[in-house]
């Protein structure tokens, strides 16, 4: 294997890892605050991709008639806002009532799984099984630098993942909202007594997580322009595994875990026959968890009752 192929695969892994990282960030954010594994997150990502499809379709269509580049600029914020609404709605109608009733966390996780299935099958019922083709919003440029090819889209995806990570890291560690989030995860019974509106903070968490899932959905639809109702399932599970390997609850862990999974998946194909990809990739992850059960950046926690 020569050097150019190696560099090419590093770029491939960076792009693929970016999607894992973006989705893993949403898992870890919600887990960090609520200790809830939001299994519907992969499907919120899928909904984000569909929302971006319809938003882009509307602005490209005869009613608005914007140019593809303008459409892209409008689609990014709109998709994020609308997907955030979906996430918050889920929280309002599915998770909050259970939390109010003091249900065990396990039931909320199961509810999340069901919410994911509801999103998938309601999509299937409304839009049918036929796949959708995402329109091209940014004119694709393929650059060839010394035998290594990359596209403008690839570069954009990688930078977006890095920027989103830095932004979330800043929100969590430097702002008052972030401090409240960390506080809730530390002790959710004492926090309301300190005058912190827990429900509002949780809503903000869902806005952040789902909003960036929407952004990931849009970028994914642009990179892999075939949409189907179950597109979020496998990538969602894998991103969840990435978040766990990175140390769930930790922003840095989700980011590193996402890229790690991307690199492992691409790396296995690079060295071994592609038939073994998932087998080898997940064996490596298992070994990591075996050595460090809390994940790369996770810290052991004692459960509070």
């Amino acid at each position: 294997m020569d050097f150019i192929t190696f560099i090419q695969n590093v770029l491939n892994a960076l792009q693929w890892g970016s999607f894992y990282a973006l989705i893993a960030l949403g898992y870890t954010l919600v887990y960090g605050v609520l200790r809830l594994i939001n299994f519907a997150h992969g499907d919120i990502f899928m909904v984000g991709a569909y929302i971006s499809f319809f938003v882009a379709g509307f602005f490209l269509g005869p009613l608005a008639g914007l140019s593809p580049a303008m459409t892209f600029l409008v689609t990014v914020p709109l998709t994020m806002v609308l997907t955030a609404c979906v996430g918050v709605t889920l929280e309002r109608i599915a998770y909050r009532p259970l939390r109010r009733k003091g249900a065990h966390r396990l039931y909320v996780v199961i509810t999340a799984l069901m919410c994911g299935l509801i999103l998938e099958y309601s999509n299937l019922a409304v839009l049918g099984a036929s796949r959708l083709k995402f329109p091209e919003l940014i004119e694709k440029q393929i650059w060839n630098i010394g035998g290594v090819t990359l596209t403008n889209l690839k570069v954009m995806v990688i930078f977006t993942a890095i920027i989103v990570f830095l932004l979330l890291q800043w929100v969590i560690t430097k702002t008052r909202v972030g401090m409240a989030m960390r506080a809730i995860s530390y002790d959710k019974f004492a926090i309301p007594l300190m005058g912190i509106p827990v429900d509002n903070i949780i809503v903000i968490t869902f806005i952040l997580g789902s909003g960036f899932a929407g952004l990931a959905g849009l970028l994914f639809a642009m990179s892999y322009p075939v949409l189907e109702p179950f597109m979020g399932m496998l990538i969602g599970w894998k991103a969840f595994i990435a978040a766990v390997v990175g140390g769930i609850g930790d922003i840095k862990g989700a980011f590193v875990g996402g890229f790690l999974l991307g690199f492992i998946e691409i790396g296995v194909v690079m060295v071994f026959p592609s038939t073994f990809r998932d087998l080898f990739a997940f064996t490596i992850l298992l070994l990591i968890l075996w050595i460090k059960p809390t994940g790369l950046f996770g810290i052991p926690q004692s459960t509070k009752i």
Partner: protein
Amino acid sequence: MIRKSLAILALGLLVATPALAAKTIKIGFNIPLTGDIPEVGEGSKNAAEMYLADINGAGGLEVGGKKYMLEFIYMDNESKAESAVNAALKLIEQEEVVAIIGPNSSKQAVPGGGTANDNRVPMISPWSTNPDTTKDRPWVFRAAFLDPFQGPVVADFAAKKFSAKTSAVIFDISNDYSKGLAEIFKSSWEAKGLGPVVAFESHGTKDQDFSAQLTKIIAAKPDFIFVPDNYNQVALIVQQARDLGYKGPFMGSDAWGTPDLIKLCGEQCYGQYFSTHYAAAGAKGATKVFIDRYQKKYGVEPADYAALTWDSIGLLVEGIKNAGKVDKNPRKMRKLIREGLASIQSFDGITGSAKFDEQGDPIKCAVVVKISNEGTFVFEESVCP
């Protein structure tokens, strides 16, 4: 008193139902209405509805001097292997059908065929090209040619058209159709002695990123890439290969032949070739009549699976006629139909005429089509065994 008469009435109805049922022939369809290839299920169903309207509109199917209505039951197999088995069992046990049409793709037809054979129910797969579907299964038949024939067709065509010396393959490891065809292509390419298969890479059904496999393929510098994959994956593979700087041609197989390929792949698939069962453009005779009627009714050109479903029903009808009578007992009827099907020597369908060998497989011609710059499938050449 009233209650008693009601009970007698209900009893009468119960007795009457089987007698009524004997007037109809129940046929099951095991097709992918949702899942990875919903387009295929829909096309099959459309063709079946057309056939049903023809037969029942003419007062039913005449078997042994009596007319029987046909009843079609459509069961979704979600494009999954395990669901194909469940759908087949449901059709056999709950619906008590006398024969099954489908599954279409080999991924479902290989396990589905096993179920039908074990339960002694005649089954005809319209679209499956993998040899295992019918191999050593006396109850299973098909309407399409086989991959051991399709593989060499592709290899010969590509060698001639692209003056290719080397080739590469990317296929779906979890799909019997894709894997089987990839392996047959590899051995038939190597048998030609022009050059090696420089890369032989696989992926999973739900995969969306193929960059690592394609990087490996492109680094091996093949003269063309053979992609025996479903249309949804073809769209992603072609685009990603172009993004990675591949400029050479692609060659596809019969799974490419759906209008959805053009919708999903767009201009990037223009100019590529694939082997298939028939070409709608430039058709003549009965094929043209079918295409025109289908187009008028559903507004789209029928893809190969729709035409093959039509031919499968035609085969089945022939088999039922050969059976000579309709037995009320579904088990006996199934046996009669199987014998009727096995006795068919040759069949003139809209996808060409075919002769049948001892495995129940047709021997028929394949065509290679080119995807034109308008996104239509244009006849390029016909290859006969």
